[in-house]
Structures are given as C-alpha cells and as structure tokens.
C-alpha cells in the first residue's frame, strides 16, 4: 500500500474508536510534555547560567601573576620552571607584551589596596580596586543606582551595596530584610568621600608633588629608592552597585571601585612594593597581578598558554566552567530520564490499545487478507496507526510542555518581581527540542507498534473469518 493510503486508512481507523485512541494519544502527549518540560527547564537553566557567567566577565578573563607571588601552592606547574627568585617581574613592559598577544582585547593591572575613606568625617577602612571602562558591561552593574564612570580618570567612585550600608550605618542585623539599593543611593549619590592613602614617590622627594601628578619617568632607573608620602584625594560617589562584581575573588574582593587611569595616576603604595623593596631595580610600579580580557571564552586556553610561556602564573575560570558543563550534562540526563518515564508508560498504552484493536478488528484483518492484503500491508497499517498516535501525541505534547513551562516561568517571575529581582527565562524550548520530541514520540510509538503489528500480520485469515 502507498503511504497516503496507509495514512488515510490509519486515521480513519483511529477515528473509529475515537475515545480509546484519544486517551492513548493524550497519554503520549503527557509523556512528551513531561519530557519537554524537563529538558526545557535544563536548557533554560543552562542558558541562564551561561548568560550570567558570560556577562560577569569571568569566562573571558585570565588573571596573571608573577611566580614570585604565588608560591608554595602545591601546584605542579609552580614547582617546575624557573625558581621564584629568577622568574619575571610583572611590570609595565610585561603588561604591554601581554596586551600585544593575539586575541587579547586588554590587559590592565589589578590595583588593589586597603586604605581609609572618610565620609562625614568618619573613617572607614576598606579594600579598593580599580576598574577599566570595559567593566561597564559587567552585569554586576545592571541593577546599579547612578551611573558608571564617565571617563577613565574621573575623580569618582562606585560603592558596593554593603559598603553603602556601612557608610550610612544601616548594616542590617543578620536575617533582617536588606534595604534596597535605591533607598541607600538617595542620600549618597553625588556626595564626596575623602580617600587617604600612601603615595609612593621617587626619591629624592624634595618638592611636594601634587596629587594626580604623573610619576617621573626620566629613565633614571639606577635609583631604586623612593619615599612614601601621605596623601588625600576627594572622590564623588557616582554609583551604588547592587551585586558584587568581584564575588570570585573571595577575601580580597573590593567594596569600593575607582576608574583605572585615576588609580594609576595616584601611585598608591601597593602591598607588592613592600615585598619587592629589596629587589626593586627601578621606581616603576610592579603589579601584583594583571587582568587579561580575551576576545571570546574559546580563546582563553591559547592566551593562557602564551602567558605561561612568558614565565607567569595564570588563572582562569575555564576549569570551573568545564566542571559546570559536566554538572549540566548530568542534570540533563536526569531530567531526560524522568521525562522519558512518563513516555514509557504512555508507550505501554499504545501497545495495549493496538492489541485491543487487533482483537476487535480480527474479522476486518481477515477480510483484508482474503481480498488480497499482504502481511506487510497489515503490518504497515498498524505501524501507521501507532505512528499517527505518536506524531499527534508528540505535537500536542510539545505545545502542552511549552505551556506548562510558560506558566511556571510566569509564576516564578511574579515571585521574583515581588522580591524586586529582574525577571528571568528559566524555560527555553529550542527548535531542536521540538523536533527531537516529536521524532522521539514517533519512534517510541513505532517500537510500541512492533509487537501488535507483527501479531496482526500473522493472523490466520481462515480462523479470523470463521467466527461471527
């Protein structure tokens, strides 16, 4: 029989016992819907995480430090290569060299120091770090009140929410509701802070340099001496960020951020300077670490290798992201298995329905054979019926699964809104999932039809026609 004829006959047979076949098809739909719901939750979560992580700048950043800094961590690569004493110093020429590597968009020093900030004459000690203009796209600043730095050397500062609470004396007791950022921002935005810091000055320090004055770079590198002078810098609060952009840094994360160029021009005395004091060959700054931004996450590994060859230690979140991917694969497999369970139950329904149909249509099968239907014709007809239920169930199931996802997503977002968190898409039904689900339902149905179809095909026409 030709396929259009098969389809036509199959659909008419399905219509004949409409209730039973509809129930079976609904069973398949529910199975497919649960599969779609589970897998789209997995996909949605993965997309959500990837989006978050890509925006956070974690995946395209390599942290570079000198081997002098990271010693005795027990890592194999640390023990190989030149001894810490002989390894390269992470200074300005090294930074420029790294920035010239292929696929590197920028390499900026990590300027990070603890100092005192005065607000309304009260001193607050905190960790400060410098941010380049490119950090603007970091999603930690999505929910920020105020604005990002307008230029790279503006005398401005962005506060992390917890520091803003500290300045206002509003640190909530543990477990109490946190004040919103907007609430904190109102009294602080536009206000001034005074930063007191130690400036590193080339010796001999006869004249009193002004703040913001660039470091002397006359090439007098023979002089390794410098002095330290106490300075003050007024900074205007331009933004309060809700999230912590440095959450990955753990204990060294900063709560106050300066524009990068401004921070560089201040020549703040850094902790590394003390460690280098005995070896310093010049008054040029030596960086404790450098952040390297790579064009896209796929190129991180190559850039890391190139920097390692230069004699530095690198760290990227790539390893972490690999294990994250592993976690998602496992999550996927689990969701898929749970989703498939319902479909397995549904497939037993198909077997049952078709075996019932054989009993009911025994005579009809006998007639078809008597007037010339071959075993293959009968078999194909039952396959077509199973397949039609599979495809119909698959289509209805995808729609159902999508609808379930939308409803749950809506519910979660209503909750998120009440918690003043921006809405997210936890549910994603990509096209491949739609196509895969329908094909999968079709195949499962065909497998379910295997036994009934071959049983129908083997039916003896003489026996089938004998009884009324």
């Amino acid at each position, binding site marked *: *029989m*030709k396929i*259009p*004829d098969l389809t036509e*006959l199959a659909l*008419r*047979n399905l219509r*004949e016992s409409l209730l039973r076949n509809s129930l079976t098809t609904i069973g398949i739909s529910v199975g497919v819907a649960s599969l779609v719901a589970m897998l789209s939750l997995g996909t949605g979560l993965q997309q959500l995480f990837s989006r978050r992580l890509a925006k956070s700048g974690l995946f395209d950043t390599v942290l570079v430090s000198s081997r002098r800094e990271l010693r005795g961590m027990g890592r194999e690569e640390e023990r190989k290569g030149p001894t810490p004493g002989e390894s390269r110093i992470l200074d300005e020429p090294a930074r420029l060299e790294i920035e010239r590597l292929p696929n590197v968009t920028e390499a900026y020093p990590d300027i990070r120091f603890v100092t005192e900030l005065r607000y309304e004459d009260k001193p607050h000690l905190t960790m400060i770090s410098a941010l380049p203009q490119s950090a603007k796209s970091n999603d930690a600043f999505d929910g920020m009140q105020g604005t990002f730095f307008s230029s790279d050397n503006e005398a401005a500062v962005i506060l992390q929410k917890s520091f803003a609470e500290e300045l206002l004396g509003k640190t909530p007791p543990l477990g109490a509701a946190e004040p919103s950022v907007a609430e904190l921002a109102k009294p602080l935005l536009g206000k001034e802070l005074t930063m007191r810091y130690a400036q590193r000055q080339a010796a001999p320090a006869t004249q009193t340099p002004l703040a913001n004055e660039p470091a002397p770079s006359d090439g007098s590198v023979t002089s390794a001496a410098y002095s330290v002078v106490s300075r003050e810098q007024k900074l205007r609060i331009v933004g309060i960020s809700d999230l912590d952009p440095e959450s990955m840094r753990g204990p060294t994360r900063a709560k106050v951020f300066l524009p990068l160029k401004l921070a560089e021009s201040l020549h703040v005395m850094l902790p590394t300077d003390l460690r280098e004091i005995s070896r310093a060959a010049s008054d040029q700054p030596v960086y404790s670490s450098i952040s390297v931004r790579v064009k896209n996450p796929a190129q991180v590994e190559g850039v890391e290798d190139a920097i390692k060859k230069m004699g530095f230690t690198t760290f990227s979140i790539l390893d972490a992201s690999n294990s994250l991917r592993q976690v998602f694969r496992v999550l996927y497999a689990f969701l898929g298995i749970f989703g498939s369970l319902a479909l397995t139950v549904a497939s037993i329904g198909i077997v049952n329905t078709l075996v019932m149909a054989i009993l009911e249509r025994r*005579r*009809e099968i*006998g*007639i*078809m*054979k*008597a*007037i*010339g*239907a*071959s*075993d*293959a*014709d009968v078999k194909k007809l039952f396959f077509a019926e199973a397949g039609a239920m599979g495809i119909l169930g698959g289509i209805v199931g995808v729609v159902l699964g999508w609808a379930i996802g939308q409803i749950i997503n809506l519910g979660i977002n209503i909750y998120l809104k009440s918690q003043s968190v921006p809405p997210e898409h936890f549910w994603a039904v990509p096209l491949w999932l739609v196509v895969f689900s329908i094909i999968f339902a079709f195949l499962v149905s065909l497998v379910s039809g295997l036994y009934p179809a071959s049983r129908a095909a083997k039916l003896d*026409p*003489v026996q089938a*026609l004998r009884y*009324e």
Partner: protein
Amino acid sequence: MTTAPAVSAARDTVAIRSQNLCRHYRMGETLIRAVDGVSLEVRAGEFVALLGSSGSGKSSVLNLIAGLDRPTSGSVVVQERDLAQLSREELAKYRLHVVGMVFQSFNLIPSMTLQENVELPLRFAEVDRSRRQTLARDALERVGLRARMEHRPSELSGGEQQRAALARALINRPQLLLADEPTGNLDSHTGTEILDMVREFNRELGMTVVMVTHERALAERYAERMIFLADGKLIDDRPNAAAALDLRAEGGES
C-alpha cells in the same frame, strides 16, 4: 466435455486442478481430516458447485483454492500456479489479482462506505486514486448500487450488501470467482437475484466460478457441474444436465 458440446475451445484449459489434496487439523488428541485426498479439475469458464452437508469439507476445499489456507499434503494448481509452493507474499498477490471471493456473511468492512469497500483491493494493488474511483463507480454501477455508494453496509439490505461484495470481488478483474454459501443469509428471491448476477459474470466475462452451497436446488439451477463431498472426501462429480440444457437453450437463442 461430451455432455456440453457448446463449450468453446478456451474452456478446454484447466483452471483448477487438485491432486490428492489433504488438509488435516489437530484438535487436542484427535486429528480432523477436513479435506482428505480430494482430486478434482475445473476448466476455465466453468460454473461448478461444491455440495455437501456442514462439516463435509467443502469450505475447506474452497479456502485451499483461494490460497487462504495451505494443504497438509497433495497439491492444488490454479492457473498454472502451484499454491503450495508460493510464499505468503506471493499468495497475497494471487488472492489480490487472480481470485475474487464472496462470503455468506458478505464481509464488508462496516466502517467504510460501499465505495471505499469496493476500492479497498485497488488500494492493496496500489492503483492511482483517480482511476480507483472510476473503477469502483463502474463496478457499483454494474451491480446496480451506484446510487448507494456513499452508504455504509449497515444501511443496506442483505441483498444489496452481497451485490456490493460481488462488486468488490470483481474490481481487480479476477479469473476466478469463489463463493462460499453466497445466498446463505438471503431469502430465496434475493438469493436468485445474486446468483443470476454471478451467472452473468460467468458467461459474459468468462470467469470461472466455484460455489460452495448446501442447497441442491440452487446448484441444479445454476451450476454446470456438481461435486459432492462428505467427510472430506469427494463422493460424486457429475455434470448438471438441466443447466447444460439451459445453457444450450440460451446459446441457441442468441
């Protein structure tokens, strides 16, 4: 055949030949010999009646000729095909193209209209849709059911259903028409109408007809030859003088 001098030369070819045909069933401990060494010949274009009481094995012989069943031993050769040697697939093809069947209980598919029922063998033969519809309409026209082709079998009388079954049996232009008690569920008037139609096909289309019946009167009225079976064995095979005379008379008229 000497008693039927009016037969044409084509009638001398053998359409069906069975030799020592046996069909045995095992039912628990007992062996049932439904067909037990039947040897017979039917010539092309002949109208033969298989007679016998119920359980005599006449339907079993018909099923063997129809290729619905396989012999336990012996052979049945139809139009030079040894049915015992054919595969299941080839037997299906044989049933589709060579044989047309009608049954006591009509055996139309209740969920289909008459037209769809009549078209069904054409679907198995993979005939194009447009041609299928023309052929089905013509066949229904021929049995006088053109007006009722959109009806389902349950909406029709027994006679009409059997006429539709005839139309279905003839749709693939088979050389052989096998009828298993075709009038068993009909009143005698309607039964006669159906058999008149069968005789018409037999004469006009030169179709070989084998009819199973237990009504001797009907056999005598329509069949050229009567074969009697009892307990699976052939007990008598004789020409029907009355039908032969009738045939000759009609032949004389034309």
